[in-house]
């Protein structure tokens, strides 16, 4: 029954773009209908997911399908339900935001196209989480990837959007290829392509290792693990902001879902898999935040933070796998709960931040940090909501990001309870890595909040900023409320998370429950203390305001006593981050252009840095360019010559026949 409801939600979401096409004459109404359909889909999806999260048994729906090997199998278990909630909620909020941000009344066909693909992506993401058959999964996965391509191209006339969309498409298909190979290998070995028949895959031996590697590459590319993250910043920055919120907030999570689901197939995975995942997660976390620090583009910066957060999630998953390998329920629960909760939390605060970035771009027309500044005065609501998201992503209590990171950190400390000299106890190193990542993320968001919202406007565009309309503020306010809610009341989510961990690992719920309650208790205490501190600070501020008789003097920030200071003298975001980024030169490869001042009366001098995407700009693109120039010589021989091409076909045919006859 609940599976049917979830399927209905996916169908409604998929069809939500149609009103825009049908009621072209009344664009405002059409767009409202479309957003309403997505909200309805989210409501239906909640109706399906919440009973499963509250403990009702998994719901299965099975139908024959005409395609070979495929069946229309839908399964809604706690793991699917955890992912289904953000996957349906974020697109609905994004669509409401889009009413003001990407209005069909002004943009016409571009908005209609965007809404069509937006709905298709939302529906196919839901189907990915529900599919219980490999071919149905691949079908939904491919529709989702293609829909994402068209969403990135919403601004198709911009060259950066075009380039980013092609890189995205290539990366998506390489990933699909790896997943395809993985599914084909497992399916033919098991004789069925239904996931139900795949439980208990053997995890020892070289073959299992290769299978796991295929899945890691395929799903890791979608999730954006370092070094497979290269497609992500460009695509997320080029898309319209509410699309970026969906792509960064939930589309990446389908890759994480795939990793979770795949790990669930194997029985007792070896400890080395968990350690590999933790190492990859640690690399993604640290490098993601280091790359984010160096960015000048607000949305690229946020996109790199997605890499960082995916790293945190992967570390949690690695811990859970390690726990299964060593039979330690504490590790399983804390790792799984941390990772799964961070999936939801990241969806909430990253969407909030991307929507905030969209509001900034909407108000000023630029995403360049060095051209913004002082927006808090013009758009106080946006600034406040963005601050909530920034605090949450930095993992500060009493917000939701803290709870999930706390779970992962506690899980890492549990690794110390493993027998002495077990190499798996190195997993405790996850805790300092988390601390480093959290601190760097906090520094990065101090930079963002400081350069965008505080100080004085650095350009005329920033000076003309205005507060966003209510349709844009409302979704952000809801997201911020959810962030605060989970942060203050983590007891709401701990039941579903422990049920999910039990279903995923096959361990009995009673064994996992005590750890969950213990972690919950400490998280709730820290949140209370943090709330108390915040209240104290608020009270002191209020008291001081009451004591004050004369208003504060108004002067330039960083004025340094100049008589006529300009915004160009202000401390820039790059200067702020420089002290941290200089330690990461070995991964950032910034392009520095420096013309130093010369002589006693220097006329002009310049200094600029431009961060580069190391994997894409320095490794992949040059390699592709070399490959093309090498093959173009061969291509020259055959291009346009029909006979030679037919001859090649003939030669291949003969060679294959000969091979079949002589060596088979």
């Amino acid at each position, binding site marked *: 029954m609940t599976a049917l409801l979830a399927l209905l939600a996916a169908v409604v979401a998929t069809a939500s773009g149609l009103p825009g096409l049908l009621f072209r004459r009344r664009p405002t109404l059409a767009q409202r209908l479309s957003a309403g359909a997505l909200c309805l889909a989210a409501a239906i999806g909640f109706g399906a997911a919440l009973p499963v999260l509250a403990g009702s048994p998994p719901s299965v729906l099975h139908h024959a399908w005409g395609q070979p090997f495929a069946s229309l199998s839908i399964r809604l278990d706690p793991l699917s339900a955890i992912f289904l909630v953000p996957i349906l909620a974020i697109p609905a909020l994004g669509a409401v935001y889009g009413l003001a941000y990407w209005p069909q009344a002004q943009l016409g066909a571009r908005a209609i196209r965007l809404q069509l693909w937006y709905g298709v992506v939302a529906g196919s993401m839901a189907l990915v989480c529900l599919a219980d058959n490999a071919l149905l999964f691949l079908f939904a996965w491919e529709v989702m990837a293609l829909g994402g391509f068209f969403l990135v191209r919403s601004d198709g006339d911009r060259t950066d959007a075009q380039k980013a969309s092609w890189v995205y498409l290539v990366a998506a298909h390489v990933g699909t290829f790896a997943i395809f190979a993985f599914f084909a290998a497992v399916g033919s070995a098991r004789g069925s392509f239904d996931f139900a028949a795949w439980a208990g895959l053997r995890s020892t031996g070289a073959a299992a290792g290769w299978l796991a590697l295929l899945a890691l590459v395929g799903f890791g590319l979608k999730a954006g693990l370092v070094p497979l993250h290269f497609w992500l910043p460009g695509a997320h920055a080029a898309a319209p902001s509410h699309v970026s919120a969906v792509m960064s907030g939930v589309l990446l999570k389908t890759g994480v879902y795939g990793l979770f689901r795949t790990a669930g197939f194997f029985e007792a995975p070896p400890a080395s898999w968990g350690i590999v995942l933790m190492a990859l997660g640690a690399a993604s976390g640290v490098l993601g935040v280091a790359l984010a620090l160096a960015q000048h583009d607000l949305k690229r910066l946020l996109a790199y933070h997605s890499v960082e957060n995916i790293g945190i999630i992967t570390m949690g998953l690695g811990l859970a796998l390690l726990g299964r390998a060593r039979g330690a329920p504490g590790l399983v629960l804390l790792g799984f709960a941390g990772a799964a909760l961070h999936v939801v939390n990241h969806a909430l605060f990253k969407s909030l931040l991307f929507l905030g970035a969209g509001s900034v771009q909407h108000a000023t027309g630029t995403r360049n940090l060095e051209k913004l500044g002082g927006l808090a005065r013009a758009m106080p609501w946006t600034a406040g909501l963005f601050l909530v998201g920034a605090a949450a992503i930095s993992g500060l209590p009493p917000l939701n990001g803290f709870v999930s990171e706390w779970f992962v950190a506690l899980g890492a400390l549990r690794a110390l309870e493993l027998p002495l000299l077990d190499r798996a106890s190195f997993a405790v190193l996850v805790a300092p890595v988390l601390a480093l990542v959290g601190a760097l993320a906090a520094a990065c968001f101090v930079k963002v909040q400081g350069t965008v919202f505080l100080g004085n406007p650095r350009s005329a565009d920033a000076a003309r900023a205005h507060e966003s309309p209510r349709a844009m503020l409302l979704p952000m306010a809801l997201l911020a409320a959810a962030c605060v809610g989970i942060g203050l009341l983590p007891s709401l989510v701990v039941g579903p998370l422990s049920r999910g961990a039990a279903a995923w690992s096959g361990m009995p719920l009673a064994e996992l429950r005590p750890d969950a309650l213990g972690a919950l208790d400490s998280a709730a205490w820290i949140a209370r203390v943090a709330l108390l501190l915040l209240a104290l600070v608020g009270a002191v501020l209020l008291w001081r305001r009451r004591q004050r008789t004369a208003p504060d003097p108004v002067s330039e920030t960083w004025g340094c006593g100049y008589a006529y200071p300009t915004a160009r003298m202000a401390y820039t975001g790059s200067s702020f981050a420089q002290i941290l980024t200089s330690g990461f030169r070995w991964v950032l490869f910034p392009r520095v252009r420096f013309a130093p001042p010369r002589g006693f009366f220097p006329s002009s001098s310049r200094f600029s840095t431009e961060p580069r995407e190391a994997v894409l700009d320095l490794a992949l693109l040059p390699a592709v360019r070399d490959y093309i120039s090498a093959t173009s010589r061969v291509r020259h021989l055959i*291009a346009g010559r*029909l*006979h030679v091409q037919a001859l090649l*076909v003939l030669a291949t045919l003969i060679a294959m026949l000969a091979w*079949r006859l002589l060596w088979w």
Partner: protein
Amino acid sequence: MGAWTDMAFILVVVLDLFLLASSRLGAAIRAVALQGALLSLLALLLTSSGHDLGHMLAVAGGAFFIKAFLIPWLMFRAIREMAIRREMEPLVGYVPSLILGGLGVVLSFALSRGLPLPTNEMHPFLVPTALATVWTGLLLVVSRRKAVTQVLGFLVLENGVFIFGLLLTDFMPVMVEAGVLLDLLAAVFVMGIVMFQINREFASLDTDALSSLKD
């Protein structure tokens, strides 16, 4: 009955060799049409009691209409509109291509026993004829210069595939066969139109001249 089937297979191979040696386009088109008619006849002759008769009649009828009637008519129209009669200066001469074709026939008869196939009950000439016909088709595509002859080569190649398909009629759904026939018709249609357009624009159907169009 068995003798007629043998005869039909042998005629198909002989037509292959005739096509390799022929320089007159009209005769070549007629040969391809005759081969198509033979194929539809073969589809009927190979029907044993085990087969679905309606299915075989549909396949044979479709093949006859398209291969023996519709496509030749299109081809004749094409060469009439473009006023060409002969294939001049092939890349590989007539005698060498005849020798290569003969070699192909010998090899396909010699090697066909080694191929693993889904069924064992079949006419002994079926696989070698199919291989020889595919070989002839590819040879025509590779060695001839006029676009019309290349289309003919493509048709012969398709005939070979069709013979192979007769082996699999029990396994192949009607929709797949209908799809193949439709595909073929569409391909010839497109090639005919393209040839006509090229001829009008460039006053030549020499594919070597087309090579200068490459990127």
